[in-house]
């Protein structure tokens, strides 16, 4: 089974802090994704990566950056957290040639 692990289930940070959300997958997938989930809005894509050090902006990249230094790990970075970034963040991965995304359990981030 594909396993996508997000290092934190809950995080509480202060406005202006730099925040790192980590995601690791164990299936050697080339593609990894970060989504933000808000009530009534479904999932919105922040960034995705199709290879090590390669990334593309999704639909709502403002205020976020990402890092993919190793194939199995994809990090989401909030350079200066703001209260409007309080949300549930979901990581996903996908293998090449396969159109199914596998999701982690999510990180619920509160920015105070």
């Amino acid at each position, binding site marked *: 089974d594909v396993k996508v692990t997000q290092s934190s289930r809950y995080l509480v940070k202060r406005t202006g802090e730099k925040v790192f959300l980590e995601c690791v997958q164990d299936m050697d997938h080339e593609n990894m994704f970060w989504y933000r989930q808000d009530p009534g809005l*479904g*999932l919105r894509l922040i960034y995705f990566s199709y290879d090590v050090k390669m990334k593309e902006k999704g639909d709502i990249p403002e205020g976020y950056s990402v890092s993919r230094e190793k194939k199995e790990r994809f990090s989401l970075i909030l350079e200066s957290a703001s209260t409007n970034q309080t949300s549930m963040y979901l990581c996903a991965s996908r293998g090449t040639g396969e159109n199914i995304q596998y999701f982690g359990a999510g990180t619920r981030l509160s920015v105070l």
Partner: protein
Amino acid sequence: AQSVTQPDIHITVSEGASLELRCNYSYGATPYLFWYVQSPGQGLQLLLKYFSGDTLVQGIKGFEAEFKRSQSSFNLRKPSVHWSDAAEYFCAVGARDNFNKFYFGSGTKLNVKP
């Protein structure tokens, strides 16, 4: 523009009753279609998918969905709901020409009455 509509935000059904969750999509061609389920505090789990072929697809946990091209719909059904089915359900559309393009509906929360 591509979009996915789940018209029901909340649905409540009695345990043992049948269930149908609606999903309509707007897409230029026949997309890949998915239903995911999210239990409270959890990530998304794939219930079923449609890529091609038989328009009635079976998934895990006794769920099925039917693709109707003429109605641009992919409704999820279950003949008899269990209390453990209480969760949020998301319909999603995937682009055939770009596997990194996924569009999610806003979700339907299912409550199950004893």
